[in-house]
């Protein structure tokens, strides 16, 4: 056993910082610059790996064709029309759904960054932790816009008629606001959960009942009472109904719009701080 030569005995005075005491703040321009650089990174990812766009490109096509041609005839009849009636019904609903499925992608992508260690690099750089998350959200919104555009193109081809362009834009905007709120949930899961697969599995488990237990695909009147009680409070019903009213006109939308906005704001206010906090304190 040799003597240990510990350089600084514990009794040595604690070192004092010699530079100005206050910690630097990152200005708004800094945040924008950082977020921009990280958005560029995520766009380069898509360029590198075009397959990652499959969901945004194919999902709207497949879902539209599937629902319109499989259920369209019979649900349309129940609506008092035919397939054309259903197209007008389901397209706004599918638009609402795009936001949800895209939101899940933001969580899995975020989670993968933690696995690879690139997140440690980001966290050791003088940037706001929120910039990393905001960049993910911006890119995901771009993907959502692409998915929505494709959905509308397919819809127009198969005979969807837009009653109000302004209403259409408002509906897209509303879907995005709600999508952002959901993204904070998935970002939190991206930080907290162990793997991207877990997030995906969990996501489907939660999203499927929410999506189908709503007015997205079919009117809720014929559902049993207990289910109606659920669908009435399901924010996706409000979003789908609002989008439908805005795009097709002819029915009052104010209530559904407010309910959707209320949900979006509430979810964001609760989940964004949690996501940022979890990210900040992640070890």
């Amino acid at each position, binding site marked *: *056993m*040799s003597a*240990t*030569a*510990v*350089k*600084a*005995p*514990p009794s*040595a*005075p*604690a*070192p*004092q*910082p*010699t*530079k100005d*005491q*206050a*910690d*630097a*703040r*990152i200005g708004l321009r*800094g945040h924008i*610059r*950082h977020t*921009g*650089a*990280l958005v*560029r*990174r995520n766009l*380069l*990812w898509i360029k*590198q*790996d075009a397959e990652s766009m499959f969901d945004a490109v194919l999902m709207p096509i497949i879902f539209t064709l599937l629902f319109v041609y499989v259920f369209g005839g019979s649900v349309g009849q129940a609506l008092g029309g035919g397939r054309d009636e259903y197209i007008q019904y389901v397209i706004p609903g599918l638009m609402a759904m795009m936001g949800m499925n895209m939101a899940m992608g933001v969580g899995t992508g975020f989670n993968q960054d933690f696995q*690879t*260690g*690139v997140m*440690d*690099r*980001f*966290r*050791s*750089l*003088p*940037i706001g932790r929120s910039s990393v998350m905001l960049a993910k959200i911006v890119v995901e919104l771009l993907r959502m816009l692409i998915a929505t555009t494709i959905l509308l193109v397919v819809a127009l081809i198969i005979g969807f008629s837009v009653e109000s362009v302004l209403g259409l834009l408002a509906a897209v905007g509303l879907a995005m606001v709600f999508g952002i709120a959901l993204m904070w949930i998935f970002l939190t899961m991206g930080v907290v959960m162990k793997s991207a697969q877990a997030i995906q599995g969990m996501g489907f488990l939660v999203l499927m009942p929410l999506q189908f237990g709503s007015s997205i695909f079919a009117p809720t009147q014929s559902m049993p009472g207990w289910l109606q009680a659920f669908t009435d409070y399901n924010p996706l019903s409000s979003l789908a109904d609002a989008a439908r009213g805005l795009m097709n006109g002819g029915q009052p939308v104010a209530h559904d719009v407010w309910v959707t906005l209320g949900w979006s704001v509430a979810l964001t206010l609760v989940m964004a701080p949690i996501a940022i906090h979890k990210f900040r304190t992640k*070890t």
Partner: protein
Amino acid sequence: MYGMTDIHNKPRRGTDGTGSAVSVRGLVKHYGETKALDGVDLDVREGTVLGVLGPNGAGKTTLVRCLSTLITPDSGTAVVAGYDVVRQPRQLRRVIGLTGQYASVDEKLSGYDNLYMIGRLLDLTRKESRSRADALLERFSLTEAAKRPARTYSGGMRRRLDLAASMIGSPAVLYLDEPTTGLDPRTRNEVWEEVKRMVREDGVTVLLTTQYMEEAEQLASELTVIDRGRVVAGGGIGELKAKVGGRTLRIRPADPAQLRPTAAALDEAGLTGLATTTVDTDAGTVLVPILSDEQLTAVVGTLTARGITLADIATELPSLDEVFLSLTGHRASTPDTATTTTTETTEYEGAAA
């Protein structure tokens, strides 16, 4: 050692007046029952390389993560380049670089795009980011591969890109967390050369964690040995080497029965430096710590005089385990250390020497 004093006339950044670029006192970080850091004290003198040597799970990575603001210590203080780790994390992040087993580059991005992005994140202008990226790619011999995604890089290229990425902001202090773990000897030498050059030409202060005595010897001027979250030894490399015995002579007598007589003969002759011989019965060898070539010659002479026939004789650098054994009197704490730290023979000296 390796040009530690040859820093040209670079202005030194991050002086605190006492010459320490990194100052750590009583740093503690517990994870539940696990004491990852249990009161660590250390200093890194400006413009030098401090090697932090320890087995897996000794707390090396936790230390680096505390010092690079990735985690907050439970107690204790750490000042890096004049900034307090807990109170001034944003300022601190501007003056440090981090390269290691965990912090790495974005595999999907090209080498250039990685460096450009980091430039922008460090608030360089677009133009500055471009020229800095190009310059560092050139310097780390990555210009050819600049446009390829980093995932297509070889292990050595990856580490060079990691190093380049941590140099974008011209940091005053650089953390290298096991920078050559998992690399083959040739690539390891490449990385060592780059690190030496960074110290020599950029005057950067380096805190290096490693499991390899040889790596510490190659790069560091001072060494801190940690185990179970505590500093167990520290000092200049030469000083510690003298304790550990610099090199180890592994002698295999032709007759296994001669093992103990061999060890006894050498101990009697006082040829074992400051330590004593170790008999490894399983391997049928005697380990002798030696400090010089003369000593090696004397060992052979002594054994010949005693009439002991040797089947094999080889010099080795001490493994982490042996360092621990001689410094602390006990083996490195993790049971898997024996498999992760292979004994490194002098066969590979490489371009470094």
